[in-house]
């Protein structure tokens, strides 16, 4: 089965979720695969992709593609599709991937297996497993009558591959810079500094109503910091709705869906809509003073405690372990 993987970059930096998608395609294909990358001044990023499982990199490098536009990037992906004639296309289910995959699919008279947590090939067709009803159920889906088989793998679920000894990939320039862009990105404004987004973090530490007020975020943030670079801050809907923190931190059905290696729910009771956003995390820790809180039903480890004496002690314990 022939794969083409869309690789997302921002400011020349390739997104981890895209490398996971390349790794997944290479695993399903049984060897390196074709990829496509769009942007401006992205030659170095393109060459690096060989180490992650790319045999070929179609490169749409143009000042017109410096900022994302769905028209321009779908154009680049489609130009690569025309040259490569793949059976299947993978696009990581990031904000960008979710924006361009359905557009690209409709253009190619095809559907999308959205946000898959598992993907396999059966009789030459992709079969995926995806959460539905916010993770309350799982659907096994296939590409039906789609001409092109398109799937968007969920970030943080599949491993990325890395082989520093891999040969440089074949670089094929493609032209996609001449499309008229109607919906144009004027600017990208980082919200809340350079913090890691919850959807990309290996460890998510979320605070809920139990933290009692926005003045207590530092207790949670210190733990995030102690856990290191791959950790990010999250929040429950209750505290977002109360205005204690911005919506971009919200984990849950009306917020972000995350699958980190470790999820810590601090002072979060675990309403069904929160569980929907983090239920697929690999290890879940619940810290709550109510032993009946539903969060303990999904937790791997639990501590029934007031969070105020406990969390600073836990931060200290994590720091001690890390410095060993």
């Amino acid at each position, binding site marked *: 089965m022939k794969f083409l993987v869309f690789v997302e970059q921002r400011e020349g930096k390739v997104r981890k979720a895209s490398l996971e998608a390349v790794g997944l395609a290479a695993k399903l294909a049984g060897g390196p695969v074709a990829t496509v990358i769009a942007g401006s001044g992205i030659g170095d990023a393109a060459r690096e992709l060989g180490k992650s499982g790319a045999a070929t990199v179609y490169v749409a490098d143009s000042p017109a593609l410096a900022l994302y536009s*769905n028209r321009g990037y779908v154009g680049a992906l489609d130009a690569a599709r025309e040259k490569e004639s793949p059976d299947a296309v993978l696009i990581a289910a990031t904000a960008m991937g979710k924006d361009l995959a359905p557009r690209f699919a409709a253009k190619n008279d095809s*559907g999308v297996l959205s946000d898959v947590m598992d993907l396999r090939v059966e009789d030459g067709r992709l079969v995926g497993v995806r959460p539905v009803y916010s993770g309350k159920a799982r659907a096994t889906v296939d590409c039906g009558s789609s001409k092109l088989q398109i799937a968007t793998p969920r970030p943080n679920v599949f491993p990325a591959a890395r082989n520093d000894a891999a040969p440089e990939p074949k670089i094929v320039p493609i032209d996609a810079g001449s499309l008229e862009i109607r919906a144009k*990105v004027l*600017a990208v*404004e980082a919200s809340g500094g350079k913090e890691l987004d919850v959807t990309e973090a290996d460890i998510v530490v979320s605070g809920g109503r139990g933290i009692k007020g926005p003045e207590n975020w530092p207790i949670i943030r210190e733990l995030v910091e102690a856990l290191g670079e791959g950790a990010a801050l999250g929040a429950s809907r209750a505290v977002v709705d109360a205005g204690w923190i911005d919506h971009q931190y919200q984990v849950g059905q*009306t917020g972000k869906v995350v699958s980190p290696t470790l999820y810590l729910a601090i002072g979060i009771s675990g309403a*069904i809509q929160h569980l929907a956003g983090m239920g697929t995390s690999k*290890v879940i820790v619940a810290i709550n003073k109510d032993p009946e809180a539903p969060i303990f039903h999904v937790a791997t480890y639990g501590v029934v405690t*007031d969070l105020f004496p406990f969390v600073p002690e836990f931060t200290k*314990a994590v720091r001690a372990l890390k410095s060993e």
Partner: protein
Amino acid sequence: MKSVVCVAYVPDTETKIRVAADGKSIDESGVKWIVSPYDEYALEEAIKTKETAGGTVTVVSLGPERNKTGLRECLARGADDAIWIDETGQPDLDAFGVAKNLAEVIREGAYDLAWFGQKGVGGDESVVGAMVAELVGLPHVANIVHFSLAEGKLTCDREIEGAHERVESPLPCVLTAQKGLNEPRYASLKGIMAAKKKTIVERPAQASEPKCRVRALELPPPPKPCHFVPGGDPKTSADGASADPAGAARELARLLREEAKVI
């Protein structure tokens, strides 16, 4: 400004999901249906636009007869008229099939703005809005948390990982609404009365071979029981162990490193 809002009518987010006898869909008995929450943000923004810039708001929904109840709710909140696309006899419509049917309505109506929620709660695919835009040949901006209109152009902020993209687009355009865009209003009693007199135009759904097919629907396996670390706070500790937050903290950290191997 002529706006159309496409709404999905979905199981309430608090619904306990059970799998139906066919093993591919949900058991609908006892399910309470609601307008998909993201579609409420879309509707609110369309109504606000009508209030400031004038024009009309049409709501469209594809589904069985019950979707008319959802449309009636939207009319009560301030939409002017509604179109119900009756899916009876077309049970196989997937997201692409829904998009194809909605695209036809949007093409015919020549709307300036076509609104969607960023996803329909339940299917959670996040694909219909952008598919419709491609099928009709319109630009689209997805996942927006801010919207403004000036001099025949729109400007939106779209939420991405850790940042917002400010996007400008000419009209007509397809937009998908994210939480944070606005606070949806409730229907007033006056609105509910007025909605009874508004029309819901009915049309049959057109067939479309499914591009994606559900083979099976399953509930996730039940989680393993929680491993409680003893020694929490004395006032709240359920296990009766003596309070030792520092000891419990060290034990939790040890388990995460040595047993779970995640830190």
